[in-house]
């Protein structure tokens, strides 16, 4: 589903190279965890997948279902089925959450040639999804993410993911800022989306999240490259021994 080939990317503003020859393949149905120390390029990778303009790909390619997505803007990638759950979801005053959800769902439907959702059907879907995430529907009457706690913002991201039904989900440190109960709810939400035709990329610092969202593969990112890949036992190894050992091996 996702194939990243020898990817090099830098920050447009100052030319700093962050991704330096990254290779990664994630198959449909797979849950892949990407771990790595601070500054290894994890969040940058998520932004590049989503198409953020602040980064420039200088070499290599990103294939999604066999097609390069480098020329697609963020909206085109999203309608193609790529979803990024942000580490720090943006607060957007003045944009009502409900209105935003409706526009986003219907824009995606339009791009796929589907009819826009009727209001009752839209509301039904939102209510059902919110209920599974223990979210108060009244929260969605507020402006997008404004005044939401850290945990509420993360739940709102997962809510969007459930409603938009993407094929490739990229979760950027979804566990940060969550207490144990919220972590469980959010993880359950993600697990419910696991399916043979969907791939999930979980970016995290800690093993903690991976106890709830058990990955099929684990990849260690360091200095903009995947330096080691393995199964879920690799995450346990990292938790016990830190990144130093793996980094040492690679060097």
């Amino acid at each position, binding site marked *: 589903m996702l194939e990243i080939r020898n990817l090099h990317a830098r920050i447009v503003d100052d030319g700093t190279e962050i991704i330096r020859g990254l290779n990664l393949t994630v198959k449909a149905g797979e849950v892949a965890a990407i771990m790595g120390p601070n500054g290894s390029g994890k969040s940058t990778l998520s932004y590049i997948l989503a198409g953020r303009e602040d980064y420039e790909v200088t070499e290599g390619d990103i294939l999604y279902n066999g097609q390069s997505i480098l020329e697609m803007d963020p909206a085109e990638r999203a309608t193609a089925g790529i979803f990024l759950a942000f580490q720090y979801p943006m607060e957007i005053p003045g944009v009502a959450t409900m209105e935003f959800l409706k526009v*986003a769902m219907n*824009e995606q439907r339009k791009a796929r040639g589907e009819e826009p959702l009727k209001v009752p059907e839209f509301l039904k879907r939102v209510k059902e999804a919110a209920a599974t995430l223990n979210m108060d529907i009244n929260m969605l009457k507020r402006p997008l993410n404004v005044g939401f706690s850290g945990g509420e913002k993360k739940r709102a991201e997962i809510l969007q993911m459930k409603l*938009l039904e993407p094929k490739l989900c990229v979760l950027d440190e979804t566990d940060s800022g969550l207490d144990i109960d919220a972590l469980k709810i959010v993880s359950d939400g993600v697990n419910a989306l696991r399916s043979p035709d969907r791939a999930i990329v979980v970016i995290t610092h800690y093993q903690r999240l991976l106890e709830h969202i058990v990955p099929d593969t684990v990849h260690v990112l360091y200095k903009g490259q995947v330096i080691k890949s393995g199964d879920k036992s690799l995450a346990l190894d990292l938790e016990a021994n830190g990144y130093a050992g793996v980094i040492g091996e690679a060097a």
Partner: protein
Amino acid sequence: MNMHAQPQRTLAETALIDAFGERLSLLPGDGAVMTKRDDAIEAIKHGLPTRRIESWHYTDLRRLLTKVPAFEAGAVGKALAPVLEGSAVLPVLNGVSNAKLPEIEGVTVQRLSEKLTDGSIAPGLDRYGDDDAIGALNTAFVADGYFVDIADGTELEKPIELQNLQAGGQSHVRLLTRVGGGAKAIVVERQTGEGDEALVSSVSQLVVGDGAEVTWLIVQEQPDTATHLAQFKAHIGKDAKLTLFVMNAGGKLVRQEVVVRTTGEGADFKLRGINLLAGDTHTDTTMVLDHAVPHTTSTEVMRNVVTGKARGVFQGRINVHQYAQKTNAKMACNTLLLSDDGEFSTKPELEIFADDVVCGHGATVTEIDHNHLFYLMARGIDEKSARGLLVKAFVAEVIEELDDEALVEALEVRLDGWFSTHG
């Protein structure tokens, strides 16, 4: 007005002075009113204000008012459906109060032409200062409008909409409203039109009685062939509240003056304004607020969206008088500049003579936040729609503050209307 006579009259000045001579016999009013008219045209004879007059620095009326259309207007149909459903509509069509007067409990409505004829409004026709060109123009030519009196203690069930519609040509309208003590009212002042070149002057005068609560919405949607010179003047009594919402979404040359004075302790004034500016237009909102007694409060928030070659101005002057201790006043003006050719000038002024007050002001000019744009696009909303959502959000924030669902919805309809033609 200028202290010194201009060396040569402009076409517009000449046309106004000539028109006064021709119209004089048609204008209603007794001796007292005529004296005010004569004084007013004298002021115009001294020349329209230029940028050398401080309060007109960003709107050089002498240079910008290049032509003055004749009085003959096109045919204007009938009153429009009101902005707020169920409102009692008082229409002024091509400068004439043109309707059967509605009967509303606790409300007395009179045509202004009658009050001009009997001279009872003569004292209110004075200019508020030497630079009051709009007041002078209006006093010279005003022929009609309405006088609305809301009796003490009346809580209006339905809003009143004062509708000023102009189909080209000239009109000069005055809308006087007295809201009695303890009364409650929502008033919409709708300024719009269609057709050829127009020159409209409109002066609204409002007295908010002690303990009364008034929400006044100015919805200005003139066509881009119209020059719209408007003034809103209000006195706010003891423990009374006035919320003034101004939406400028049209016009070729627009100046909206807001002249407010707190006259009783505990008075509160809120100004919320949105300027939606497009095309090759000029829109000036100028406020002069006098905190004239102790313990009064005010907040002013302007949100401006500038596209195309539009130019916008906000001048906000707050005068805190010497005895007006414990005044609390805050002013903010935020502009979203969406084109390289557009411009917006902001001039906040605080003049404080009391020593125990809290006053502040701030101004920002920004572009669309790229982080926000990325977030919306990352959910599949295409760039154009995402930008539209963000621009709308920028001004909608001020509307939502009104905290009245019917008002918010009605104004969002106006907003959507503007975005559908200019977005």
